[in-house]
């Protein structure tokens, strides 16, 4: 019978379970890292962060979103460290006083993927802009992030170089998904479209379907990652000491070696290139 006592008992039990489970969080020494989907979804963090935690006892909680959103979140003070890939925006972030200092950490590269049938005939090319031009010429479907991510910004630069007005084609052969890299690759796989992706996300992506890497090796496809401690003077809740420890470790010999050691299927995905002085 559902009497008053069972009722109150049930409610109390739910409340207690909920509060105990919820309270279990956020006690340890930890920092909040605002980063991108490419670093998280590739598995780099799953490999890298435990090494750091083991050495320092500092847990790193990762929020993985597009570069633009990560920077916005950090600007609001919602994070201790920013680890993204859009150099110009990162420098603007520091210049505006939100960050202390930017350090190069590593790079990888973007690749153009597309259906094996390759209607634009771009396979094997090394000139990314030329490949995009060819895709635009035959109006083959192209899936774009269409968000505020580092990858999208790199893609727009390439379209500019190819002198293609993608805004005019949006909704036609040019399709902006407005979502993350993986989601965009899902869309590309689903409709046999071309796409620009970072190599790490691609390597770890499991729904490749009929897609393959068609264009790679262009210097214009270079993808630089940087790390920045969020400025504690601007955002007093930033855990400056712990955050700085993480930044220091990433650019240290040890951190750099760890990054170089991350592979998927024997393939190295990120290339450390920190300069001790930062930028």
């Amino acid at each position, binding site marked *: 019978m559902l009497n008053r006592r069972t009722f109150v008992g049930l409610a109390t039990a739910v409340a207690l379970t909920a509060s105990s489970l919820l309270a279990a*969080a956020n006690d340890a020494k930890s920092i*909040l890292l605002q980063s991108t989907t490419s670093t998280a979804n590739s598995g780099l963090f799953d490999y890298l962060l435990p090494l750091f935690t083991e050495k320092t006892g500092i847990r790193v909680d990762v929020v993985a979103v597009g570069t633009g959103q990560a920077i916005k979140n950090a600007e609001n003070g919602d994070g201790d460290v920013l680890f993204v890939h859009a150099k110009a925006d990162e420098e603007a972030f520091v210049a505006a006083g939100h960050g202390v200092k930017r350090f190069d950490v590593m790079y990888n590269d973007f690749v153009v993927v597309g259906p094996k049938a390759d209607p634009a005939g771009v396979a094997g090319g090394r000139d990314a802009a030329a490949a995009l031009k060819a895709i635009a010429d035959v109006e083959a479907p192209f899936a774009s992030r269409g968000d505020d991510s580092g990858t999208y910004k790199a893609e727009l630069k390439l379209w500019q170089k190819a002198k293609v007005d993608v805004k005019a084609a949006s909704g036609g052969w040019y399709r902006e998904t407005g979502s993350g890299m993986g989601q965009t690759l899902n869309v590309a796989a689903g409709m046999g479209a071309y796409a620009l992706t970072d190599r790490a996300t691609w390597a770890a992506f499991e729904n490749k379907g009929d897609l393959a890497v068609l264009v790679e090796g262009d210097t214009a496809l270079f993808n630089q990652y940087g790390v920045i401690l969020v400025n504690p003077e601007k955002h007093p809740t930033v855990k400056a000491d712990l955050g700085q420890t993480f930044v220091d470790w990433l650019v240290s010999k040890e951190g750099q070696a760890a990054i170089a050691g991350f592979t998927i299927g024997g393939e190295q995905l990120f290339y450390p290139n920190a300069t001790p002085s930062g930028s």
Partner: protein
Amino acid sequence: MQDFGAAFRLAGHLLVSGDPDLLEIVARSLAVSLGAVLVACLIGLPLGALIGFLRFPGRRAIVVFLNALMGLPPVVIGLLVYMMLSRAGPLGPLGLLYTPTAMVIAQAVLVTPLVAALARQTVETLAAEYDEYFQSLAVPWHAALGALLWDGRSALVTVALAGFGRAIAEVGAVIIVGGNIDHLTRVMTTAIALETSKGDLALALALGMVLILLSVGVNAAVMGVRSRAVEAGHG
């Protein structure tokens, strides 16, 4: 698509193996959504009941507004709560963003209008039935409110379940205010979103099946308690 078969096998394997990461995420999903529903009921049930049985000017407008709020997309709620809880927001000093508490708040905000609107409907029907009797006894409003909620409990349990269903299934709000942080704020729906974005559709689907089972389990448990109450004739 061979993903279905793979997903079924994977779901079975996940359940049988008792994978600790999965159990952790399941427990967190339950804790967050049950917590949110509890908060939503504490606010939404009395609120809905009051609107259901009090007569005051502007009541119809409030009912329409409340019903409309039921349709608010989770992602909008997520954004609003994010803006409140962000360090740069008015409640920033509490440091709640990217914690399970933030997720409870977001889901509570999401579910409260639903609970209130459905409770309003239930209580209004019951209040119409009780109205003259209560008047003839000159029952004070708070006693009437209590009696309506208590006597409507059978239907209100279903209301709470509807709220739970909406909470446990939504991803838009918790992914924004929780951040989908591994071992801290990752729940079933954000894990599904993550695996989907990694292209691991089989695992995503398997997690989805586990989520359905979870939902069925909670509903069955609650309905079990409820049907015993109904058998006892108190429905």
